[in-house]
């Protein structure tokens, strides 16, 4: 069974979510991967969306973080202030699942503006949403993003969500309780922060992808682990489940 790089990325991201944990889910790729996880190895994964739906079990992929299917299938629906104050802020949620428009070698994320001038951006992006506090307060953060020189940049134009800042000790200095980004999963492979330097390091490549290719798709001198694993290819079950999810989504369009 063959698959696309995007499918491999979603499958790898889904696998990273442990069962019986809570996950604060952003829309798009994170939502796809989280729902895939719940349908495969993590049936008791608790999905929390910023619309206040806690323990949602959507039958199909929501197009937005506030689709009716989330409220109708949730264990409980709380107000937006409560989901941020009572649920996210105290660090009750294991995993924060984020995307990115730009990411740097220390896992700092930009979803605000492209270009050096905030007041006159080349491209105005949607902005922060819940991401800054998700990145700060979840016990760990997983980033899912397609890898390219446009996205993987030496320096993000704007720090929307804080990763490791400029390296070791920055999170601690700022009093951030969450561990920060522990995995960056792309269409090419998986990057993890070096335990010492906190720099994102290539630790796994998806089947058929070379280190060279990953280097070309990275806007900085990419650090590579001594031992680079090869991601296990998607199983038939994973692919079928993912495709069923996305098919239902297409229909809905």
């Amino acid at each position, binding site marked *: 069974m063959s698959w696309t790089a995007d499918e491999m990325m979603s499958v790898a991201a889904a696998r990273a979510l442990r069962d019986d944990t809570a996950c604060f889910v952003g*829309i*798009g790729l994170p939502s796809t991967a989280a729902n895939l996880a719940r349908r495969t190895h993590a049936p008791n994964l608790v999905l929390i969306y*910023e*619309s*206040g*739906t806690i323990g949602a079990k959507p039958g199909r992929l*929501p*197009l*937005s*973080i*506030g*689709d*009716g299917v*989330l*409220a*109708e299938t949730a264990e409980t*629906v709380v*107000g*937006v*202030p409560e989901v*941020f*104050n009572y649920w*996210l*802020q105290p660090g009750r949620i294991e995993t924060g699942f984020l995307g990115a428009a730009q990411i740097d070698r220390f896992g700092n994320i930009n979803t*605000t503006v492209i270009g050096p001038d*905030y007041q*006159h*951006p*080349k*491209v*105005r*992006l*949607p*902005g*922060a*949403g*819940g*991401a*800054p*506090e998700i990145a*700060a*307060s979840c016990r760990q953060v997983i980033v899912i993003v397609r890898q390219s020189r446009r996205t993987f940049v030496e320096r993000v134009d*704007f*720090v*929307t*969500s*804080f990763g490791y*800042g400029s390296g070791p000790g*920055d*999170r601690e200095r*700022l*009093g*951030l309780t969450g561990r920060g980004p522990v995995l960056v999963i792309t269409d090419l492979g998986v990057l993890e922060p070096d335990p010492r330097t906190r720099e994102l390091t290539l630790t796994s490549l998806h089947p058929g992808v070379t280190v060279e290719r990953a280097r070309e798709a990275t806007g900085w001198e990419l650090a590579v682990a001594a031992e680079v694993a090869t991601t296990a290819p998607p199983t038939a079950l994973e692919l079928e489940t993912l495709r069923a999810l996305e098919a239902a989504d297409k229909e*809905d*369009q």
Partner: protein
Amino acid sequence: MAEIVSLPEAVAELVRDGDTIALEGFTHLIPVAAGHEIIRQRRRDLTLVRMTPDIVYDQMIGAGCARKLVFSWGGNPGVGSLHRFRDAIENGWPAPLEIEEHSHAGMANRYVAAASGLPFAVLRGYVGTDLQAHTPTVKPITCPFTGEVLTAVPALQLDAAIVHAQRADRDGNVQMWGITGVQKEAVLAARRSLVTVEEVVDELDLRPDAVVLPSWTVRWVAEVPGGAHPSYAQGYYDRDNAYYRAWDPISRDRDAFTEWLSAHVLDRQGDG
């Protein structure tokens, strides 16, 4: 006690040029018809406040109603950019748009502070981000007991708030259920408020799960069936995802947008 009036009457009374207003709705129950009425009444220099400005704010910005936007996420959910919002910020069309940018947690707490009659709210937020440098309404605050430094944001003082709900009775008591976001806070934060509803009924049946706005907390109620379209009203109609997708090409092009605006908003009456 809330007065039950038509949408055009309500908007005429509610919104004045230069006002700071919020049309809230978190994906669900977005008061789109009221936004279109504001466009029709040619309001100008508005400061538009909303956590998640989406299509209706894109339309109001493109129509030239807004001087400033206070927000935390400005996109077309699940689709992509808001092109009128981008055109205003990137190219100043149809007019420059000043922005005041926050995170969701910050905006939600700014509504809570205003609804609570407090001048500010405290949260763990914005830490390490560039928002602190670009948004003057984010300041540090020290805990008087532990000495810990946290983040303060000011209350969102609104001249007017508009939300959409499922139902009201003839006395103007409002019921909304499902995802209700910060709508209650927005209404309680505003000097004047309008709730558009799917239907006005003689008697509200008991819905212990509903968020209730008693008549005495609301200024005007207007019956506007379908008033949340293309967003959804749980129990009434689903989200029109096709509309959100169709908006992308329309909004990318100034002429296509201008044409759409005349055909679908300006030349129509209060049916949104």
